[in-house]
């Protein structure tokens, strides 16, 4: 049962087409990613889902409601973390959360949320004295303080250092464990790969692919390459006869096997049966980056 349904969404600003034709469904409890380069129409898409903009065409349904007509009801159950949305400099962490909690019928406990997001020692710190990562965590906390069923997180980790980025990813996973469906906008491959159950790749206002990260990679770059040094002489035909294997070659003392599907399992089983140990075993797969280039014809500018 999808909690978000977007069908043939279209949005123009003047003569510029921001969103050409975008459709996707988000199932309850999943982390759904919207991935694409800057200016692809990601933010406009989620802003329409959040009810902040009116589409020029297409249908959007969130929890079975229309984001424009039922805006008041949806705001109770959809938490939004916007890109570049700040707070007054002198507002303190606890004050911000208590203020935003007062807007909702059934809010989360601000004190508990502050602890969960690791801001316990910063509760009395004014906004302008927080680090980038702390500001981001506060922003996520504000999106969650209403106990939403859906959280929309836009460019969550842009501008954060790698450590803060990883911490934030851990946080998003914990949010999902609370049963919150997450719509995540990102232009970071690593983030999409790590967090998302499914991804819509958007380029120039259109969905160019929609699948799990592994599915996207497999569909575009299905070949895997296994490298190892056998502990005993090995007859290449033993591996070449496997249905999953497409090629066997040698590179010095290394054996290089290419194949698809569960080729790794098939190869290691054969080796085990023949009591051969595979030293320095490596599996090389296509990455989401490769898949993206294949799908869109260009690289994601970072």
């Amino acid at each position: 049962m999808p909690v978000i349904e977007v069908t043939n969404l279209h949005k123009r600003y003047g003569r510029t087409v921001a969103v050409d034709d975008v459709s996707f469904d988000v199932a309850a409890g999943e982390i759904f990613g919207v991935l694409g380069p800057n200016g692809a129409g990601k933010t406009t898409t989620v802003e329409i889902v959040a009810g902040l903009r009116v589409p020029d065409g297409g249908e959007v349904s969130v929890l079975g409601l229309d984001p424009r007509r039922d805006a008041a009801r949806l705001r109770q159950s959809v938490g939004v973390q916007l890109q570049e949305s700040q707070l007054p400099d002198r507002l303190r962490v606890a004050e911000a959360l208590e203020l935003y909690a007062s807007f909702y019928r059934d809010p989360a406990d601000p004190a508990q949320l502050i602890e969960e997001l690791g801001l316990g020692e910063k509760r009395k710190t004014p906004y302008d004295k927080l680090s980038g990562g702390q500001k981001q965590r506060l922003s996520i906390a504000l999106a969650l303080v209403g106990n939403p069923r859906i959280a929309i997180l836009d460019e969550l980790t842009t501008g954060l250092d790698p450590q803060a980025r990883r911490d934030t990813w851990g946080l998003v996973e914990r949010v999902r464990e609370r049963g919150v469906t997450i719509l995540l906008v990102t232009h970071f491959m690593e983030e999409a790969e790590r967090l998302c159950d499914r991804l819509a790749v958007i380029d120039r206002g259109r969905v160019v692919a929609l699948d799990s990260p592994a599915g996207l990679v497999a569909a575009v770059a299905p070949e895997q390459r296994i490298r190892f040094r056998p502990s005993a002489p090995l007859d290449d035909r033993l591996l070449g006869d496997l249905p999953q294997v497409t090629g066997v070659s040698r590179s010095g003392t290394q054996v290089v096997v290419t194949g698809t599907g569960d080729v790794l399992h098939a190869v290691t089983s054969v080796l085990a049966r023949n009591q051969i140990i595979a030293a320095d075993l490596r599996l090389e797969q296509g990455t989401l980056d490769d898949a993206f280039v294949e799908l869109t014809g260009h690289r994601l500018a970072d």
Partner: protein
Amino acid sequence: MYAFGQILKTEAKLYLRDRSTLVLTVALPTLILVVLGSIPALREPSPDFGGRSFVAYFTPSLLVVTLAMIGVNALPTVLATYRERGILRRLATTPASPLALLVAQLVLALAGILASAVLLAVVARVAFGVPLPQHPLGFGAALLLGTVALLAVGLLVAAVAPTAKAAQSLAIPVFMVVMFFGGAYLPRFLLPDFLATVGGYTPPGVQALLDAWTGTAPQPLHLGIMAVVAVTAGAGAAKLFRWE
């Protein structure tokens, strides 16, 4: 309603925390009064000022300082900052309305102006023997209409300025006009008659404030103009205001 109360409470805390703005907006006219009042010659009654001292004559113009600082300067800057930093936008994603934040800012501006007026009148009375406003009802009406007219002009500035910087650069000329015609730069007896007359009709309407302070009922035309400014600028602001 509960959410509005919380927004008002939070904004009031932020307002009080910003000490430098608080001094500039609420206490500045009283500080100028104290400086001028410490000069003995300015406390002497003079026929130039209808038998009153310069200090007594100048006090209503000092009120214009507060009105201009809060209405035309502080209010649009705060609102434009809130918009520029996405604070209004974030609020738009919650069940609370950004309108609640706007109303809270207006309430605080009004409170600041009232506090400043009371402080000025009391210090002028106690320290320099300037009588309290002699026509309280007329003074209340002149102050209220003048304030509302200036706040409406401030909202109009906030409505058309995309950023805090733009709001400030738009506000400066308006601020200077208000201060000049209100007699805050040059005492009004030094202005040519024509300019002094014009000053009666530019917000916040210093002539009406002066009349009411000295005991004459303000002229209906002066008050009427303020009401027209308030409605016109307010309607323009409502039409042009953008949350983002």
